[in-house]
């Protein structure tokens, strides 16, 4: 089956003209600028999809299994491809590249115990997925997607998953015994030691490496429902593994650029007696700190979340009849009760940073977040833990 992509903005093929403001003679003057280069050759994305599914039940359907495998290949992938800015435009929406998505989705439902007074049901589902860029443009050159912060770090590269993180690998800090070597990079003991990948004696953007990917290897839910007489309990867990999170808050929170409070991790900063650390020495702000897209900003995104735990009680018929009700149930629910994760930010399900909403006033102008750039955290809000008490009434 071949399908398209309906998530395409309007008028993307046209050279659009937008209004801006200027001032003449102490009064507003409307101006216009051409803001998109226009691409009349724009066509639909073409995705061909192969599915294979199996579902079966065992033991009188006490165990049911649904398994689905898919392979999707997208041709004429629509991307906001970067342009040389000498054109007057930053990017053009165009058909460029091929992408492959494949995966397995598995759902197992079991009835573990089923008796008059007690029942226990389990539902487990897991999705394994892999995505890979197969081709980009005519020459397979890397493409960087928005948002951009510090430098371009959302990499599309043939052979890698879409939305890979790209930056410098931090090897630690320069030690006092390495002062001479550090000096060849213009640095001092206590400065960050960045991997000189190409060994040319300089740290430049050519030394950047792939630091992680935003898409997980797998995710799913594990739900158990128990009922004992009139009491029911549902425990709903959610899990996710294999992805990384770009924790940009560490830019100001750990790199100490002088503009925000720091993470407690800076207590482990380099000192002559604490040299085995990846946190640069603490210095007055005017001396300056290194800050870039570092491997130390990339974190493991695995988690298990207690998404919802619900405890309910169904009032017996003797009471509901008196009240002329069909059913009466009270329940208490805790949402987002716990998260087990090594991620150090507020929540591993991050809301992806978009330059539009952040501190920048448009210096860099890389505003649109792409569909492929996920898992980027920058001063996000914590996810609330919610407690609900409810009453279900059926007449």
């Amino acid at each position, binding site marked *: *089956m*071949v399908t*398209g992509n309906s998530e395409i903005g*309007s*008028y993307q*093929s*046209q*050279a*659009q003209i937008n209004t801006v*403001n*200027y*001032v*003449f*003679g102490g009064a507003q003057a409307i*101006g*216009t*600028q*051409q803001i998109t280069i*226009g*691409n009349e*050759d724009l066509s*639909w994305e*073409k995705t*061909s*999809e*192969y*599915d294979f*599914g*199996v*579902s*079966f039940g*065992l033991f*009188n*359907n006490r165990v049911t299994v649904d398994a689905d495998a898919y392979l999707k290949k997208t041709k004429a992938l629509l991307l906001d491809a*970067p*342009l*040389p*800015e*000498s*054109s*007057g*435009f930053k990017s053009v929406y*165009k058909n460029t590249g091929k992408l492959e998505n494949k995966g397995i989705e598995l759902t197992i439902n079991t009835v573990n115990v089923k008796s008059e007074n007690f029942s226990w049901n389990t539902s487990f589902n897991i999705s394994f997925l892999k995505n890979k860029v197969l081709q980009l443009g005519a020459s397979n050159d890397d493409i*960087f997607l928005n948002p951009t912060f510090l*430098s*371009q770090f959302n990499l599309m590269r043939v052979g890698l998953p879409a939305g890979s993180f790209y930056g410098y690998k931090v090897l630690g800090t320069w030690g006092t015994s390495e002062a001479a070597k550090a000096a060849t990079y*213009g640095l001092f003991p206590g400065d960050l030691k960045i991997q000189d990948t190409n060994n040319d004696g*300089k740290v430049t*953007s050519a030394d950047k490496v792939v630091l992680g990917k935003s898409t997980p290897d797998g995710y799913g839910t594990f739900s158990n429902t128990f009922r004992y007489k009139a009491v029911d309990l549902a425990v709903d867990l959610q899990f996710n593994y294999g992805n990384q999170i770009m924790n940009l808050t560490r830019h100001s929170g750990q790199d100490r*650029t*002088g*503009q925000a409070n720091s993470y407690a991790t800076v207590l482990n900063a380099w000192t002559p007696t604490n040299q085995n650390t990846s946190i640069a020495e603490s210095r007055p*702000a*005017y001396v*300056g700190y290194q800050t870039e897209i570092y491997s130390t900003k990339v974190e493991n995104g695995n988690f298990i979340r207690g998404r919802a735990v619900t405890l309910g009680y169904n009032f017996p018929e003797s009471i509901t009849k008196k009240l002329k009700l069909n059913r009466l149930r009270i329940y208490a629910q805790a949402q987002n009760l716990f998260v087990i994760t090594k991620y150090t930010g507020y929540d591993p399900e991050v809301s992806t940073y978009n330059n539009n909403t952040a*501190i*920048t*006033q448009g*210096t*860099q102008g890389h505003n649109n977040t792409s569909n492929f750039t996920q898992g980027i955290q920058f001063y996000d809000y914590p996810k609330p833990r919610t407690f609900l008490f409810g009453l279900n009434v059926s007449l």
Partner: protein
Amino acid sequence: MKFNLKKYRISYSLLILTIVLGSCNKDLVEKNKGNFVKSTYFTSPSQARTFVNGIYQKLYMFQNGDAYGESPFITIELFAGHATSLGQSVNNGNVIKNVTDAVNPGFETVWSNSYTAISNANIALESIAPIVMPDADKKKLLGEAYFLRAFFYYHLVRLYGDVPLITTPVTISSPDLYPSRTAAAAVYDQIISDLKAAETSGLPDKDETGHVSLGAVRTLLASVYLTTAGFPLNKTENYALAAAEVAPVLTSYSLFTDYAFLHDNAHKNQTELIFQSNYLVGVATNAIPQLTIPFNLLVGAYGDHLGAMIPTDAFFKSYEAGDLRTEERQFYFSSYPKDKDPGTIIQFGEHALYKYFHVESALGSGISDENWTFLRLPEAMLIYAEATNEVSGPTQASYDQINLIRTRAHLDPLKNLTKDQFRIAIWKERYHELAYENKAYFDIQRTHKIYDVINNTFGDATTTKNEQNVTMKAQYYLWPIPQREISTNTKLTQNPDWN
């Protein structure tokens, strides 16, 4: 337990269909009624005017920036070595220390915005020509577009050296989409040709509303001639052209009687101000005062006090004794009443730039709409004096010009100098009068000299230590081509030593 497959069911779906969506029609035409599109724009004189206004809007890029203090007007100044930058910007510190690199976002801001302006100027020049409108009006509009294109190319060619020279609108299929670099000499030829076109387009001598005037065209062209007479082109015959070009400007403008008029709201675009970008609260504002007041001291009703461009003490002390400009609240200030507590006087412990302080917003809303000055009369006067001196040594007319500036500063007039002494005197006056106005770095580029403020002399730019203990690397005569541009266009090469 043994498996009981009594209830066994298998269903499968295997779908391999290859039907191209029938609804996709290549000739599908979207009519965009909500927005303007280029193909249907440029039908009326008012649209022509509006589109040219849009090019001016890119002048704001010099104040683009954020709480880091990385505005281009600061980045350009830090390359001259006479400012410190406290606060938050790692990139600013790296520029001061000569250890920055091609990913510094300031380099991309200037590149990107300049080319956006040029792209819109190219579109204007091509698309306004066929519009039916009075010839004189059309000529003036095109003159403004020529000036603005030249203005942005002039910044590009000085900052980046050889740059792609694009003079027609770029489309997705044009060869200019992935251009190579054009030799700086050819870029300068284009700039001069554009400014000559602007010069004969019927623009008024002066314009107090902020539009391009003939005075602005002449001053900019004179600056181009002076620059091309120096490094790297060394077309010394252009000194005479610079002097001749700027001479008429000297009589159509006059100096303010008060330095405060340079940065207040009442005197925008007037008297000695030749070309500014114009701001207005509610339309377009900037952070010039926030960026230039001392770091974290409560000066003015501003939310930020960024200290991103503070003169070095040594530079401040390089003025002659008795220079009015160094007196409190002339060009500089070192104390100010605390915001909302005027009884408390804040002592800065350093000299900040009063020439960028905006009293109206400091005592008012904390939102600045002071104008940014690109060209003002003293620069024209000093171009005239310098160019004339190079051609024929000190003349009375050139003494008159520099002495007008000195007299306003309560300094004795200059006289009886040799050609070399006069040249040095003019250079110093450029530093002192046009201090922190984005002139110094360009002077270093064209003269290969830096102002050694400690010894009050000019030294070779790449062997003389500045007051911040930095000796400029030859690499720093140019900015790097922004890394993003190099990554996106493989035809580009990087400037020397920036790799």
